[in-house]
């Protein structure tokens, strides 16, 4: 197993009576692109700022490569941050911005000049050394902020929603660049965002947070396809969630019964016992529309929305539960036209179902 870069142990953070972080524990591995994902106010930024040293934690410990750091001031931690709005020093040139950390660390002038040059090359801004940072575009400021934070060769780089101020096209280009930069430098990145696409496309692993707690940690695939809680399933992408009771189970299959009485027989075992009340989750793209009577359950088509690349079909099960199915336009070719009110059957592969226990 890889070395652990940042180990967060039972962190609690109070602001007066408000609990921003409620017993958070996380292990972030060396050379990992790790993302903290969650809606605003979930505690992700507070966690990042606690690691950087801008917030004093109320309880708990933070280790950086085995060394306890939660009591150190920000300038004593070999961690650098890319701030949301870059926080470039407006009264300094680009060169001086990037050299700032190196100077504080007491590096020689020769070494500083050399590193600054390297960093400018790394972010493809070689000709900007003597420029001031005002009047630069968002993308350019973003690169300089990255170069400045990377110049002191931190053990961990923290990125606080760094792409949120950029426009869509630039944001997508910067995603690839950030990923490449992480691979090239080998520095552990901890990235904070509320944008699930950003998190899914860049990260090695994601921690989904809400209400000051970590809901689930996993690879993008795990988070998307095997969410453990209703919050995670719902927060990431579109989904179908049905509240059910486990009616029967054996080694090969399980029968789920919805509140309204619709039964769903699925060929998979469960760790849960009969009578357990849970929710089940199937992504719309995994729901297949078949002829009535041929699927796992029957439904009526109630609505169809065309989005260009995809279409969404809304259906109602016999108990009124709403189920959505997403088809890409390519899969639609040659399919027979359906009309609102048609009786259909719904089906899905057994392994696309996820049980949500909370």
């Amino acid at each position, binding site marked *: 197993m890889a070395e652990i870069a940042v180990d967060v142990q039972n962190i609690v953070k109070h602001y007066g009576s408000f609990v921003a972080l409620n017993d958070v524990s996380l292990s972030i591995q060396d050379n990992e692109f790790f993302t903290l994902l969650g809606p605003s106010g979930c505690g992700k930024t507070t966690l990042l*700022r606690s690691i950087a*040293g*801008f*917030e004093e934690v109320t309880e708990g410990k933070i280790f950086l490569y085995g060394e306890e750091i939660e009591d150190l001031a*920000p300038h004593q931690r070999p961690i650098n941050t890319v701030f949301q709005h870059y926080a470039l020093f407006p009264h300094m040139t680009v060169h001086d911005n990037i050299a700032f950390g190196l100077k504080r660390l007491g590096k020689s002038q020769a070494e500083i000049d050399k590193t600054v040059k390297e960093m400018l090359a790394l972010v493809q801004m070689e000709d900007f050394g003597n420029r001031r940072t005002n009047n630069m575009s968002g993308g350019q400021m973003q690169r300089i902020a990255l170069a400045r934070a990377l110049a002191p060769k931190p053990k961990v780089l923290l990125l606080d929603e760094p792409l949120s101020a950029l426009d869509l096209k630039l944001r997508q280009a910067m995603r690839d660049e950030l990923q490449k930069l992480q691979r090239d430098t080998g520095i552990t990145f901890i990235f904070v965002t509320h944008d699930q696409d950003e998190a899914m496309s860049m990260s090695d692993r994601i921690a989904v947070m809400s209400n000051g707690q970590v809901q689930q940690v996993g690879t993008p695939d795990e988070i998307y396809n095997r969410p453990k809680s209703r919050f995670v399933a719902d927060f990431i992408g579109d989904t179908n969630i049905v509240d059910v009771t486990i009616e029967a189970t054996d080694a090969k299959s399980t029968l789920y019964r919805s509140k309204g009485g619709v039964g769903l027989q699925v060929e998979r075992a469960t760790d849960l016992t009969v009578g357990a009340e849970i929710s089940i989750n199937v992504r719309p793209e995994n729901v297949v529309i078949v002829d009535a009577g041929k699927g796992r359950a029957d439904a009526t088509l109630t609505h169809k929305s065309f989005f260009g690349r995809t279409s969404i079909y809304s259906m109602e099960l016999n108990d009124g539960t709403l189920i959505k199915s997403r088809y890409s336009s390519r899969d639609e070719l040659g399919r027979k036209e359906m009309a609102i009110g048609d009786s259909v059957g719904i089906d899905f592969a057994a392994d696309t179902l996820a049980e949500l226990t909370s």
Partner: protein
Amino acid sequence: MSTAFEKSARTRWLALSPTYLIIGIFMMIPLCIMIGISFMEQNVYGGVHPNVSFAAYQQILFETDFDENLVFDPSYLVIIGRSLLLAGIATVVTVLVGFPVAYYIARQNERRRNLLIFLVTLPFWTNMLIRIFAWLLILGRGGVIDAPLRFLGVLDADGSLGLLYSPGAVVLGLTYTYLPLMVLPIYASLEKLDFRLVEAAADLYSNKWGAIRHVVIPLTGPGIAAGAILVFIPCMGDFITVDMLGGAKNLMLGTLVQFQFSTARNWPFGSAVAAILLIFVICNMLLYARFTRAERQRSGS
């Protein structure tokens, strides 16, 4: 992270202590002493006798006649009334002039706006004494206004319209001096105003003046109120304008106070008048604070 000033109360108060020290010792204590002196007896050679006395306040309403009887004497009430009236007129005039000017400036593009505002503030920061002196050259006997009239024969060779040393001259001077203080806050609130609201009013069958009356003025109310306070208070206590353009006949509170210290040598009475002036100011500030609080509550932020 928080700055040292946020984390440590000691750092914070250490940084504030020179302010408290200087303003405390050299402003708050003097004001307390002044109020104390207003309750003392006058020493005819200047200074005071340290006896508790209400004579100074009595003097504002009554005069002691030859038989040592108190007789009601309205002459100081007249001065207070004149101060309120002239300051009030000046305030109204500055609103009437300042609002349209601020409106015009707020409708310009940014470059022109900045230039025009700069031109409004520029005279304000230059020496007030000199600006009022310039009016002396204009209004004075044989000045810029009289001279051409004499030349045209409207006036005699040494005749004068006698504009100077009149209440009108005082109002003119006060208006001139404090106009920027009215334009700036009104401009600040007009600049924030979304002029699409005027279009919305027009869309809803309001004519231009209706839109101004029902949309623009209510929304810039706080700016107008701020301007009124900023103009009224210094007008009440003004010395230079009243002294130079009003002459001896048109005393107001500021010149009355100064007179007590420079000529009459009646410190307790001067202090009492100054204290009354201070009370006017405090009442105004409180009124304004209440108004802005109500305004803030109304706008719900």
